[in-house]
């Protein structure tokens, strides 16, 4: 039990440390621009005076957290097998505009209509990410490069589609959008649930997609932790060479993982699309794919961690408006988020080394078994090379799994 507590403590140590460091740095920055850091933080945590204001604030945070959580999951699934899916941004933009167009073009009974939109979004996201996977296993193209490039293509393509074939707004309108999705394709809000719980009804609706996000989170958690497929995926991430020897088909895994990652990425735009916007336009929420990378890092690629990280980022985003009301630049939020990402990368590594060292100590005290004898007199293999292994090994290319 104490071991469990310690491991839990160690896994929380990195993110908590990162957030604290980020807060300190942000406080210094706020002080440097001549504002009062304490006042700024007070404004940020102040959710409002009346109960209905507070509920409204929480709903805003949750509504922002849902897409962030999905974006974090999409990135994390690839992370867990050592793939960097930087292309989540492009994947969800493509998915959202096509799903919006399909959703507006058909008329189906309620649940089916929503289901169709969701499926279209997931398929488009998966295909867009699948290109990256196929390029990697057939041509050896680094997924980082190809997914970044595909982001540009996706954004350009989305703009073309929006202003051309898929435009639904009146010509000359200042905001170009697709046609609006009819009532049957929208996801109802969960406000009824809130009032049933005795809370004040908020002004904006709590996204019904929250339920979908929770389900996706649970499915991903089970997939990663409890299934054979997830084991293969994680094993490839931990050691591509060991996974190959164990019989994992590294190339197939790259493609499958990118398809899953892209499929989840396809969902990112849907909470906004089906919960409040009902069309895709020039003003549609941007940047979720990149924030997703930060959220996945902060959440250490575990679904629960990503949920917490998504909530934290959403909480910070919400504070932008109140900060402006208090005459403090809202970019304070961006600074905090940026420093969190920087700090978390460092803190995760520090925490990992601490965990490793504590594991080694635990092992050393357990077995009175001196690893004597060695190849060319090398020191016993338990010690020194544990910390040196590169975690970012890119699986999938046959060269590096055989070398």
């Amino acid at each position, binding site marked *: 039990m104490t071991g469990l507590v310690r491991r839990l403590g160690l896994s929380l140590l990195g993110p908590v440390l990162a957030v604290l460091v980020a807060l300190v740095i942000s406080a210094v920055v706020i002080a440097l621009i001549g504002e009062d850091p304490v006042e700024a933080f007070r404004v940020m945590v102040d959710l409002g005076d009346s109960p209905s204001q507070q509920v409204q604030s929480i709903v805003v945070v949750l509504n922002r957290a849902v897409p962030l959580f999905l974006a974090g999951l999409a990135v994390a699934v690839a992370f867990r097998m050592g793939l960097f899916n930087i292309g989540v941004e492009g994947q969800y933009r493509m998915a959202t505009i096509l799903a919006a167009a399909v959703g507006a073009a058909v008329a189906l009974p309620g649940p089916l209509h929503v289901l169709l939109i969701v499926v279209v979004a997931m398929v488009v996201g998966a295909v867009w990410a699948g290109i990256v996977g196929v390029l990697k296993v057939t041509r050896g193209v680094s997924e980082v490069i190809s997914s970044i490039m595909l982001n540009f293509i996706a954004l350009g393509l989305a703009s073309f589609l929006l202003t051309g074939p898929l435009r639904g707004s009146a010509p000359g309108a200042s905001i170009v959008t697709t046609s609006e999705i009819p009532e049957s394709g929208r996801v109802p809000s969960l406000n009824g649930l809130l009032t049933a719980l005795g809370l004040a009804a908020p002004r904006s609706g709590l996204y019904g997609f929250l339920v979908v996000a929770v389900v996706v989170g649970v499915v991903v958690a089970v997939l990663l932790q*409890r299934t054979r497929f997830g084991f293969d995926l994680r*094993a490839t991430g931990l050691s591509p060479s060991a996974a190959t020897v164990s019989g994992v088909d590294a190339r197939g895994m790259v493609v499958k993982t990118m398809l899953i990652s892209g499929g989840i990425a396809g969902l990112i735009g849907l909470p906004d699309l089906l919960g409040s916007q009902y069309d895709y336009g020039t003003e549609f929420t941007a940047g979720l794919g990149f924030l997703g990378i930060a959220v996945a890092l902060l959440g250490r690629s575990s679904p629960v961690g990503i949920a917490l990280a998504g909530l934290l980022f959403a909480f910070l985003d919400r504070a932008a408006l109140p900060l402006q009301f208090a005459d403090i630049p809202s970019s304070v939020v961006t600074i905090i988020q940026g420093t969190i990402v920087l700090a978390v990368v460092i803190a995760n590594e520090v925490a990992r080394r601490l965990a490793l060292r504590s594991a080694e100590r635990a092992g050393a005290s357990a077995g009175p*078994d001196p690893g004597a004898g060695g190849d060319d007199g090398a020191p016993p293999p338990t010690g020194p*090379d544990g910390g040196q292994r590169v975690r970012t090994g890119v699986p999938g290319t046959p060269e590096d799994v055989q070398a």
Partner: protein
Amino acid sequence: MASADSPAAGHGTAPDDAPLAVELRGITKRFPGVVANKDIELRVRRGEVHAVVGENGAGKSTLMKTLYGEHRPDEGQILVDGREVSFRSPADAIAAGIGMVHQHFMLADNFTVLENIVLGSEPTRAGRLDLAEARRRITDISDRYSLGLRPDALVEDLGVGDRQRVEIAKVLYRDARTLILDEPTAVLVPQEVDELFANLAELKREGLTVIFISHKLDEVRRVADSITVIRRGTTVGTADPRTTTVRQLAELMVGAELPSPEVRTSTVRETPVLQMVGVTLTDGGQRPVVDEVTLTVREGEVVGIAGVEGNGQAELVDAIMGLRPLAAGSVLLGGEDVTGWSTRARREGGVGFIPEDRHRQGMLLDAPLWENRILGHQTRPPAVRGPFIDRRAARADTARIMREYDVRAPGPDTLAVALSGGNQQKLIVGREMSAAPRLLVAAHPTRGVDVGAQAVIWELLKDARAEGLGIVLVSADLDELIGLSDTLHVMLRGRLVATLDPRRVTPEELGGYMTGARTTAGAA
């Protein structure tokens, strides 16, 4: 037996009373739990090619790292040109005129030859890179030692031999008077070896000293002026290559005090579990690394593959496991052609695998032991149920393996990295045995494990063999090979060059076959 501790007289290159270029006195180097070098004595005259020979794991590399300042000896003295020195880093060794050419080249592929050579000690003029001066010096070195360097060629366009000459030039550029070459011929084809030896002759003619690490005895005899033999971490003698035969060298290297192989009843049955027919693998290019290998493993038979490392054993193992595509030939498992099968299908078909490099291939170091129990067995019970991982069963079975195979660790949730090498290996052996394989591929199963674990693993292999398991045993440990094998093949340059009866062969003979000093037209 070669002349132990009697330095051969009469070298034309240097008078005997000149100070030695390098002298090591009583060097001892310990690592936690193991003595890698013990009382090493090495005397290298100026202007000679001095070979240091020994088996894999004899401690040659550790010794050279000591001489190159990569670590400090626990005891003993290092003398360069008669003066005692103390190296804190390779930079100190370079300053003292000692340079090292590593076995694995350390060159930047996308740099030119010139850039690679000056990298790290760039000549500058007024703070700017002085390429003209660098080019002048490199051309000078190239001409003086007949290295034939083209300073502006990109390293990625160069062949292995050229790359090695760049490495040598790198060392010469830093004004080294003594060059350490670590297994320089391991990566070369015969013609390139000839070229290298010509270069070494040039170096020697210019008065430079070369320390040549190798275990290829025929080459050593061709190039060396004197030889020091290392066995089990200590120097066992010196020899004059002109008066010593390869056979005598091999005996000195392997040692004659090895225990005689135990006599035992054969458990070999008739049914073959593994047949390899004309298996050929190439190294990506044209050169075959495994060349037309044909062998059969029967039930209850241990087939040992002996050979100096790097002669195709690792690739042969890859071929059995389906980790590399074959260029030609076929692999049959229990009579069924599995040439096109994936690694997973072969494992499911009853092939157990103890990989050579347990950290890279055998374990997930950052994962708990119970997850390591699943590794390689992701599709089979008890740890897996349908598409799901059965965590409870995996933990329970891990606990059983830990009990039955004496894996010392706090519990199934311990991270694999926390275990000693011996315990990690016992877990791997237990894991592979638990799946009741038909064939076990064991690559260096006791490498880097302590003596206790080694005995346990040997017993396990013997018991499994008695129950009808076919085993392919690749090892560099001659005792292990002779003691466990029913049939012994020797692999040299990708070919099976000899098939021996382990009950009759001596370690010295085996060593002779491994290094190519002995040949046979099929001795069994």
